[in-house]
Each structure stands twice: as structure tokens, then as C-alpha cells.
């Protein structure tokens, strides 16, 4: 049945080369942990991607209950965690995943660094990777405010002070992030929500696409 549907579509659109291009390529021996166990270090990039997928999915589902409003944000998080079936799990995935994704990203970066895999011709992909790292930190920073509890509030207060310490544009940068020159409040929460859920994920997807296209184009770096 599935084969029939596939053949029907393939006959009209010739999709085989499309997915072959993406999926059908050899994994070199030196990156295969089944050959050399130490090759598990090559898994960290894929694991970062895996956790990112969990973040995106669990985050999308959280927005079904979450409200970015200072009167209701905390209550909505409390409700989705305590009252909604499996709420604790879905929020837990997003909550712990947010830290795990940074850990994976860091291990992946260490592997690339110590293997010198960033060298010519892969310099551009290192740069894209650094941008991805900043976007991830931004997601963590903006997401942290969303539950609107005391920890969230004061962490953001401190984060905004750090932004305000930027030479020359510090104060304006803080206002741009917080939505108000002195208040961390209603406008800060809506801004952080918009940045967390729309702006940074859009940047993330664009950068990930560039990252993966470059890997396919250049291949994985050779054995040491």
C-alpha cells in the first residue's frame, strides 16, 4: 500500500533523487562508532539536533496553554504542569532539554575544536556554528522569563543589566529588549515571548539549514 502510494507520487514527480541526495550517502568508517568506539564524539552534532527537535515540538505544544501576560503567565504554566494530562512531562522535556541542548552543543563544539575540523575549507561552517550557539543562548535567556516566577524575573533583571553594560548603546539595547527603559513588566514578557517563539526559532532554522547544506557539500572532515 505505502509502496503503491510512493510509486504513484514518484512516477509523477521523480522524488527518488530528492531524498537520495539527502539521505543516501555512506558513513565513513572513521565516524562510525561500530568500527571505532571513540567515534562516538561524532554523535554530538546529531544529538544537538535531536534535542533541538524535542525543544521545538514540546515548545509548540506548550504554547497551547501558555499565555504571555503578566497576570496569567505563571497561572497558565502552573495549570499546564499540574492539571493537564502529561503536562509535567511536556514541560519537563522543554525545561530539561533547554539545558541539555547547550551541553550537547558544547560537546559538539569541543569535538570540532580539538579535531581541528574547523580548518579550511570549513571555516564558514564554524562561523555559522558560533551564530547557532548565540541563538541557542538567546532562546535560553528569553525562555527563562516566560514562567514569570521570581527566579525568572530576577534572572532577567540581571541579564538586562548585563545588556545595559554594553558600551555606548547599552541603555538603548536594554530598552529595546525590555520594552521599557526601567520596568521589567508586561511589555518585557510579550517581547521575550515573541523573540523566544518566533524570531529566534526562525533564525535557528535558517542557520541550521546553512549548517547542514555545508556539511553535505563539504563532507565530514577526514580521520586524524
Amino acid at each position, binding site marked *: 500500500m505505502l509502496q503503491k502510494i510512493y510509486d504513484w507520487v514518484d512516477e509523477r514527480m521523480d522524488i527518488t533523487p530528492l531524498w537520495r541526495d539527502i539521505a543516501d550517502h555512506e558513513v565513513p568508517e572513521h565516524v562510525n562508532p561500530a568500527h571505532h568506539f571513540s567515534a562516538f564524539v561524532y554523535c554530538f552534532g546529531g544529538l544537538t539536533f535531536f534535542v533541538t527537535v524535542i525543544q521545538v515540538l514540546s515548545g509548540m505544544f506548550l504554547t497551547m496553554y501558555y499565555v504571555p501576560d503578566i497576570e496569567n503567565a505563571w497561572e497558565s504554566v502552573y495549570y499546564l504542569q499540574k492539571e493537564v494530562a502529561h503536562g509535567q512531562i511536556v514541560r519537563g522535556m522543554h525545561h530539561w532539554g533547554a539545558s541539555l541542548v547547550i551541553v550537547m552543543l558544547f560537546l559538539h563544539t569541543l569535538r570540532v575544536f580539538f579535531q581541528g575540523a574547523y580548518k579550511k575549507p570549513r571555516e564558514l561552517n564554524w562561523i555559522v556554528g558560533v551564530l547557532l550557539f548565540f541563538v541557542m543562548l538567546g532562546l535560553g535567556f528569553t525562555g527563562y522569563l516566560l514562567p514569570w516566577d521570581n527566579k525568572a524575573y530576577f534572572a532577567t533583571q540581571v541579564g538586562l543589566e548585563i545588556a545595559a553594560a554594553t558600551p555606548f548603546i547599552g541603555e*538603548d539595547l536594554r530598552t529595546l529588549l525590555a*520594552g521599557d527603559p526601567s520596568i521589567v513588566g*508586561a511589555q518585557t514578557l510579550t517581547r521575550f515571548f515573541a523573540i523566544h517563539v518566533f524570531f529566534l526559532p526562525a533564525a535557528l532554522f535558517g542557520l541550521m539549514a546553512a549548517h547542514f547544506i555545508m556539511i553535505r557539500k563539504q563532507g565530514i572532515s577526514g580521520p586524524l
Partner: protein
Amino acid sequence: MSDKKQVSRRQFLNYTLTGVGGFMAAGMLAPMVRFAIDPVLKPSAAGEFAAVVEESEITNEPQRFNWKVDQKDGWYESEVEKNAWVYKDENGEIVALSPICTHLGCTVDWNSQEQFPDEFYCPCHGGRYTKDGVNVPNTPPTAPLPVYEHKVEEGMLYLGQAISRGSGI
């Protein structure tokens, strides 16, 4: 077509399409960008003064006073509590210091640490300030505590905006 300076049909189309496309992109983006940066460009609300405490209660020792102000945060209006460390210096001048640490924004306390008597102390990273609110060198804060604008009317102390004395770093 013999004149070298003549624009080819292809070039002409490229130029016009880029121009029209750029114009359309700018037309779309300009309102959105202006929308996003509005908080930066809004004129800051002029400082209002609020009654805080009878002048007679102010001593030479910093005391912490609280008062309430109406705050407008976009569409959200609320009453928020403000506070200041207030004392009279040796010349009898009133000094009202903001308790917000200039390092990363924690709240400072007066004379709370035995090993640092008569200083403001910040519990977060051990920031210290002398009585006049000037940060002690080699502690985390990089600027003195902000000073509130103040005035005294009919024996009542009124405080306005906290004015920063030099910004961080």
C-alpha cells in the same frame, strides 16, 4: 545599441526589478522596524515627585523608607513600591540613595555586615559602598549608587527620579 553607455535590455530589467523589489521590501519592513524600536524612541516620562516621609524623621544614620507610585507599563497600570536610603550628611543636607546595586541590580543593605561597618553592602557578589553611596574600589560595582532628586515642602520630603552617577564599566 552601438553606444557603449547604453543599458542593455537585461540590465534595464535587472535594475528596475531590483529597484521595485527593494522599494517593496523597504515598504514592508519600515513599519515593522519602527514598531519594534518604539520603546527606545518614546520620550521618557517626566519625573514626578512623591511624598515619602516627614523631614523630622530623617537622622544622620541612613534609614530605609518606602513609598508608592503609580506606574504605567504600556497598557498595564499598577501601584509599585519604591524605596530609598535617606539620611542627612554632616552639613545637614538630605541624601536619598537608590538601594539598587550598580553591579547587577540586587538590593543593598546598610551596615548589615559586621566586617564592613557603616557601609552599604550588596549580598549578591559582595559589592560595597561608603555612606555617600560611592562604590568601594575593587568590589564588583562600577559606579556609585544613584541619588534621588529631592525637595522638602512644608516639612515633608518628596523624592523624584533616581539619577545615575556614571554608568557601568
